[in-house]
């Protein structure tokens, strides 16, 4: 495995006595695509919340490129290079598709409040640049034509993709996808799978993927981490995991 980009070190969190995640250790290498699976309520989303600063861990810490992320707020995590999507789609519903993406470019833009309000040259220059970049990103997802549509009017599958595009726009090194294929039919799922593969290539990023659709997970993940009751119960290649009796018993079923 190449050098670890993201490292979870003894991560743990309790909610009023409930140990949702305990002693979670993982290293995600550069350019790696790792699956995170486990039964409902196992703590997968919670792990994402810990990795993105939504929750502060009660123990352990997160390292990005070797630097501790302790105490960082979500937007600071994003700045550091960790972006995510949500289990329940969270788009800026009344904004256009392209504006949704542009929001995520904000942290890379520099013009000042006055530059914007007074329409100084810096405003025009950067806005033009960002417009181009946002369109480029949409093109990756075959969504360029939808740029001016209002986000809430997109079909479900497109909304999922837009959310991913927005996360990418932050310039993240690590992308966390929480059940991106939920609610999609097999055809749509296939399309999504291709998109994920493409972006990994194009942007050279690492991805952690939570998903219950095994056809997807098994096909594209290089490595899978399985958790149950907040603890890792298995890790390995898709094939290893799929044949692990613990995993079958707790998650896959016969």
């Amino acid at each position: 495995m190449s050098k670890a980009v993201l490292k979870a070190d003894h991560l743990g969190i309790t909610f009023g006595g409930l140990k949702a995640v305990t002693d979670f250790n993982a290293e995600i290498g550069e350019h790696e695509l790792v699956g995170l699976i486990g039964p409902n309520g196992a703590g997968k989303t919670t792990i994402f919340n810990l990795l993105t600063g939504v929750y502060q861990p009660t123990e352990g810490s997160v390292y990005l490129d070797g630097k501790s992320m302790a105490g960082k707020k979500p937007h600071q995590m994003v700045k550091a290079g960790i972006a995510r999507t949500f289990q329940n789609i969270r788009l800026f519903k009344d904004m256009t598709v392209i504006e949704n993406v542009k929001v995520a470019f904000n942290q890379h833009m520099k013009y000042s409040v006055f530059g914007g309000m007074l329409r100084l040259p810096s405003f025009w220059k950067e806005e033009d640049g960002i417009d181009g970049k946002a369109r480029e990103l949409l093109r990756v997802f075959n969504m360029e034509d939808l740029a001016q549509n209002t986000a809430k009017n997109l079909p479900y599958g497109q909304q999922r993709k837009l959310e991913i595009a927005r996360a990418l726009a932050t310039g993240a090194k690590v992308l966390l996808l929480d059940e991106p294929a939920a609610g999609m039919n097999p055809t749509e799922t296939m399309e999504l799978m291709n998109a994920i593969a493409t972006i990994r290539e194009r942007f050279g990023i690492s991805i952690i993927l939570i998903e219950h659709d095994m056809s997807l997970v098994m096909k594209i993940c290089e490595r899978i981490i399985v958790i149950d009751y907040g603890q890792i119960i298995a890790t390995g290649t898709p094939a290893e995991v799929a044949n692990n009796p613990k995993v079958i018993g707790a998650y896959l079923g016969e």
Partner: protein
Amino acid sequence: MLKVKNLNVSYGAIHAIHDVSLEVNEGEIVSLIGANGAGKTTTLSTITGLKKAASGEVTLDGQNLLAMPAPKIVGLGLAHVPEGRRIFAEMTVAENLEMGAYTRRERAEVQQSIEDVYGRFPRLKERYRQVAGTLSGGEQQMLAIGRALMSRPKILLMDEPSMGLSPLLVKEIFAIIGEVNASGVTVLLVEQNAKMALSIANRAYVLETGRVVMEGDAKELMGNSEIKKAYLGA
């Protein structure tokens, strides 16, 4: 038992449902499948009275449902597991289940039904005092199904019950649907997971952009090549 005839439904200018007709007979499991935005949820909501129809007819045991407000329809013995679960997030698991039995008055029996639900979903029993909003996605789905069963319905409408569930649980849920049906409850099932939905159902309807494009015996549809291509990912 449930009859839908020439149903039309719109959201403002969007005409979501065109002349949809379908029928669910007593004791059956009927599946309604179709892509995103096909109008499955809209159909269910209209049957339950959450959404107003533009025209058409919906009857349950001969009673006209379109003229009835939702709560009354529920009183007739229809339960609906809505899309997105819609559990009462600030109530505990146990309170959610009690709410499911709102139309029933006998305390002891309600308590028994709660135990039955716990029997089906032991996870819920573990979490019975947890505030439902903090449950994981799958736990919430179990709760939603459990809550619907609490009213002891004659007919159960389910909107994508397998969404977001682990493979093991998906199997379980479908097993439960089978059991519930076996205990005499008629089921109208909306699913993305066409493979499972067709394998459990007696009959099925395929919805595309608001229209019924195919209907028939579930097993037969499963063999249909178009269906295979579009919905089974083969």
